[in-house]
């Protein structure tokens, strides 16, 4: 589904990703774990096309998308749930969802209902401005908005950050459902334990490089990973 080769990216003159490779196979959940500042978010942004890259190549289903603008990549099926939710605060919950389907031609009504079935609280608050929702509800909205885009590849950036455990459980449940429906997922998480438990494969990123990669359950059992990221 997704191939990243030799990707480099900088903020100004400071390079933060020093040539990484990453593969996500169709139907997989791939977790990307690592400490703060390792470059995980930057990598996701580069894949979405909202962060410039200085070298490397990105391919989606074999076709190079390295030079494509962000909106073309969304049309191509790469949809991201960004770090910190980034909902459209002044717009209503329902407008946020409709905008998620901006790149699709057909009417999104049926999908809006599907999101409401997934997160009933959003239906209750459908006409309220998104900025008035709690953090957990905004995260549900951000995920719902992304699903409205009918993703082939869903990029999730820290979906559990700052949320109550019960909400985190609910969100991981939705991720499982999406996988069962055939959506390919690249998941960035600080909560490495939860991410490795749900993922098929995983990458460990350290200061802009891929330090390790492999089957998620194998990595979860690895001595170094356990010490560094699972706090065991």
């Amino acid at each position, binding site marked *: 589904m997704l191939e990243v080769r030799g990707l480099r990216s900088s903020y100004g003159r400071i390079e933060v990703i020093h040539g990484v490779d990453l593969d996500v196979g169709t139907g997989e959940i791939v977790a990307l774990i690592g400490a703060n500042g390792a470059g995980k978010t930057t990598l996701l942004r580069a894949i*979405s*096309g*909202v962060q410039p890259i200085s070298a490397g190549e990105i391919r989606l289903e074999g076709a190079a998308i390295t030079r494509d*603008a*962000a*909106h073309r990549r*969304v*049309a191509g099926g790469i*949809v*991201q749930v*960004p770090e910190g939710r*980034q*909902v*459209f*605060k*002044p*717009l209503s919950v329902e*407008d946020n969802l*409709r*905008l*998620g389907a*901006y*790149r699709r031609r057909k009417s999104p009504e049926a999908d809006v209902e599907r999101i409401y079935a997934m997160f009933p609280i959003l239906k209750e608050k459908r006409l309220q401005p998104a*900025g008035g929702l709690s953090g957990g509800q905004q995260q549900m909205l951000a995920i719902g*908005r992304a699903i409205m*885009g009918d993703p082939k590849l869903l990029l999730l950036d820290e979906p559990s950050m700052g949320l109550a455990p019960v909400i985190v459980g609910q969100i991981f449940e939705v991720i499982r459902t999406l996988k069962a429906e055939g959506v390919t997922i690249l998941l960035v998480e600080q909560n490495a334990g939860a991410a490795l438990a749900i993922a098929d494969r995983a990458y460990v990123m350290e200061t802009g490089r891929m330090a390790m990669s492999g089957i998620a359950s194998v990595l979860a059992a690895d001595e170094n990973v356990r010490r560094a990221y699972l706090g065991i």
Partner: protein
Amino acid sequence: MLASFLQFSMSGLTVGAIYALVALGFTIIYNASDVVNFAQGEFVMIGGMVSVFALAAGLPLPVAGLVAVIAAMLVGVALHRLAIEPARGASPVVLIIITIGGAFAIRGLAQVLFDKQFHKLPGFSGEAPVNILGASIVPQAFWVIGGAALIVLAVTLFFERTLLGKAVLATAANRFAAKLVGINTGFVTGLSFLLSAAIGALAGILVTPITLTSYDVGTLLALKGFAALVLGGLGSATGAVAGGLILGLCEAFAAGYLTSTYKDAIAFLVMIGVLLVMPNGLFGRAQAERV
């Protein structure tokens, strides 16, 4: 007494409607791109001047007006493409200076392409004033007020009822997230220039039968429209319209009951007065950011 009150109210609403349209143009571009476009007044000038010259060239008035609107839209897109887009990411002050430069360029071109004379369009429904309760009102005033109301309504429907309108609002609210849902934010910014230029040109066509036009009417209109914008609250479409009407009425009453010598200063005195009491304007949102 009543007659003069009515007279001043109507002239205030007429000129206020034009300020409102200029301020609305400011708001649309500001919301989509954070640029305060001081070339907004030039679109009004283009609307008037191109209509005058197209009419003189023998086109019927509605066609001349259409030509003027299209001309303003082309200038709006050119301004965006040639001046604003290359400076993307520059600070707001730099962008404002660029739009002022754009305004100078447009004005200079108008002076060369047209002339330095004042011009008038015929009133759409004749020139004979209507007598209402002792006040004598030119029929064009109703065209201005009615036309402005229709434009505001159309703009409101565009933003509230269409997905493209929502996409503009979404881009204004969060440009980064807008890109992530697949909105082409560059296109949205260009669209906002197109829309603002059209609104400005329509304002120019509506008002030229009353106030006359020349190559340099844009400057003061942009300043007045900006005062209306700040008065109403930066970024609020409701505020822009209310600010424009309030400003127009203040000017008309000050000119009528006090002195017309300082008519143009009134707008700015009102703006300063309101800002002292309400720093975010009448309808502005507080600038506090939740983190």
